């Protein structure tokens, strides 16, 4: 053990080893870079769907929308999650990274895969959207890029199991993982299952694009693709909830009120969400009614129960911690005196609130068999998942960045005033955007649609004029979120490069 360089972080007391520190740093940097690209695409796409601006042409709109999905949903979130894998399987346990070479291999594959996808999409070889439903065909290089990225991500999550297994040998923990690591364990288990679905569908699709096999069944593609597509959002949920617990512990020193309850909730995610991902197929042909009912509603509700448990446990643990610090007057003094100016804390608070009320509730409703008829492929769905992965996961990760920069990068956050308002600005922007999308979707406004005035169509249809307000809400929200996103990127990169060094 003599050759491993450990340091003790003065702020958090974490014992950090050099190679895991570097892995976390570079995964976070890659995440920030891909969010910057994905966010730029988001702004351009939002400004195109805002009817009074209608910025891009049709080709670029669909191209940039494809890239937005890849960079903002896939790359940014998974790079950050792999950073969390390293953080929770080494730093939190006070042990080293046992397989740094594998960490770098995973990182390289993800970087190359992500780069390949970005280039081929920008060159116009893959205007197929994030879902790339067959028989819409992209350049084979696109599928190759996705497979490379997915293999990298799979290795990244496998590192979690290697590290926690060996860490126990070195006394990183005696019996049970800390809750933050436990949450990432749930995320990593779901990730392995999910990415296996990805391989099962993208490898045949690549062979089909290369004309080696003749036919990929469109209905089977949808079934297996969503075995990747939606459970992978449960990796995000698990990682986000782990971040909620960890941030609450770092910032206000809170302790889970009941480890049994919180851990059981994570187990519910693992058990039930993989079989609950078929709500994308509720208005598809082929699948039988009872198959759809069992695989959507039945299992989904048990996973929702898990989120309901976290929604109680985390605010409760924060309340207990703040009351212990002396904020005991009345029912709500603790809430008033909570560190609202700390962007890590406000980040998770906003994330919990918006994930639950915007993303979660709409997810339960839209995933119901009958409601899905009036929501499928409308903009309401887009509004739903901007409530989950953006207002939930992304804001939580943004908040956690404000902890990783001092702890891991050893730099102070620059522009503290801007950092304080950043989560609020971004949160208000995304919430406005999401509500605008959901409300317009209510009137049947389709998602992934260049022009809802249908110019050039054989028949013209005019939506209820009420949608104008909701479309504008989306646009204004999108611009606000973009400003919040730019601030986040500038503050993060600025702090990493120019922030005052801590410690040395």
């Amino acid at each position, binding site marked *: 053990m003599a050759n491993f360089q450990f340091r003790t972080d003065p702020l958090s007391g974490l014992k950090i080893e050099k190679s895991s520190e570097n892995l976390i740093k570079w995964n976070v940097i890659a995440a920030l870079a891909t969010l910057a690209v994905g966010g730029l695409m988001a702004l351009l796409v939002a400004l195109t769907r805002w009817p009074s601006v209608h910025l891009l042409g049709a080709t670029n709109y669909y191209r940039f929308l494809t890239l937005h999905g890849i960079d903002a949903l896939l790359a940014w979130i998974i790079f950050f999650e792999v950073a969390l894998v390293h953080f929770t399987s080494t730093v939190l346990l006070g042990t080293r990274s046992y397989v740094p070479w594998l960490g770098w291999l995973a990182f390289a594959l993800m970087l190359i895969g992500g780069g390949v996808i970005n280039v081929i999409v920008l060159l116009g070889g893959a*205007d197929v959207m994030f879902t790339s*439903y067959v*028989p819409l065909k992209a350049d084979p290089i696109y599928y190759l890029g996705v497979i490379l990225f997915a293999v990298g991500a799979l290795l990244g999550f496998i590192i979690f199991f290697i590290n926690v297994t060996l860490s126990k040998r070195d006394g990183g*923990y*005696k*019996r049970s993982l*800390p809750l*933050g690591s436990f949450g990432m364990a749930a995320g990593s288990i779901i990730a392995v299952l999910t990415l296996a679905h990805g391989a099962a569908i993208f490898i045949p699709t690549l062979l089909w694009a290369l004309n080696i096999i003749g036919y990929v*069944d*469109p*209905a089977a593609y949808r079934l297996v693709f969503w075995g990747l597509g939606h459970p992978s959002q449960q990796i995000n949920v698990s990682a986000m909830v782990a971040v909620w*617990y*960890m941030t609450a*512990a770092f910032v206000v*020193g*809170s302790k*889970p009120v*009941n*480890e*049994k309850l919180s*851990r059981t909730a994570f187990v519910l995610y693992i058990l039930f969400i993989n079989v609950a991902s078929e709500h994308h197929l*509720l*208005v*598809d*042909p*082929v699948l*039988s*009614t009872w198959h759809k*009912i069992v695989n959507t*509603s*039945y299992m989904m*509700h*048990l996973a929702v*129960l898990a989120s*309901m*448990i976290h929604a109680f446990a985390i605010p*409760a643990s924060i309340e207990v911690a703040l009351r212990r610090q002396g904020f005991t007057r009345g029912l709500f003094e603790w809430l008033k005196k909570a560190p609202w100016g700390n962007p890590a804390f406000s980040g998770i608070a906003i994330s919990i609130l918006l994930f639950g009320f915007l993303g979660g509730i709409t997810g339960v409703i839209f995933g*119901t*068999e*009958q409601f899905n*008829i*009036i*929501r*499928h*492929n*409308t903009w309401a769905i887009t509004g739903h998942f901007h409530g989950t992965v953006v207002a939930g996961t992304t804001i939580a990760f943004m908040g956690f960045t404000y902890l990783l920069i001092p702890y891991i990068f050893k730099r102070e956050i620059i522009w503290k005033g801007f950092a304080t308002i950043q989560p609020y600005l971004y949160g208000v922007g995304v919430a406005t955007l999401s509500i605008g999308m959901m409300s317009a979707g209510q009137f*049947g406004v*389709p*998602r*992934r*649609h*260049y*022009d*809802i005035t249908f*110019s050039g*169509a*054989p*028949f013209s*249809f005019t*939506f209820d004029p009420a949608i104008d307000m909701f479309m504008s809400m989306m646009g204004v929200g999108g611009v606000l979120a973009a400003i919040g996103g730019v601030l986040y990127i500038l503050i993060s990169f600025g702090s990493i490069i120019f922030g005052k060094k801590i410690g040395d």
Partner: protein
Amino acid sequence: MAIYEPERMWWNPLSKDERIWVGVALIWMLVSFIFMPIYHVVGSQNPPSETYKVTAEDFDKLVEGMVAKYKVGEENGFPVVHPNPSEPIYVRASMWQWYPVLELEKGKTYRLHLSSMDIQHGFSILPINMNFMALPGYDYVLKLTPTTTGEFHIVCNEYCGIGHHTMVGKMYVK
């Protein structure tokens, strides 16, 4: 703490608050859990599941057969068809049109066959906002009873290439 290993014994009973919260959440979940299948039996509006395999050529022949038999007019280059409610009716999706224009009768129950000639399309009836998928190779049968008269549009809401936003069809209920 979430960042430290828990104490040796962490499998502790829930407190009263926790039991109430979990109980309420569980009841809520159970209500949704039971209601969806119940509604499937008692409700009048459910996603259908009747599906057949079909080739694009065969489906096209069925569509053209219906058009030849029941064509009553033409609108913007599309045949307007007034089919007999007792016979199957067809809507064909392709890049980038919905073919033909159907004229249905209020209160009659139709079996609408939906398929795509090329790639995946989204069948969205507006302004009533009902949405179904049209996949190539599959014939999806929607049992449909129009309850209001008027003019309806079919918009494609699954991305299907550069002309996606021009894929608009029409349907009348008389």
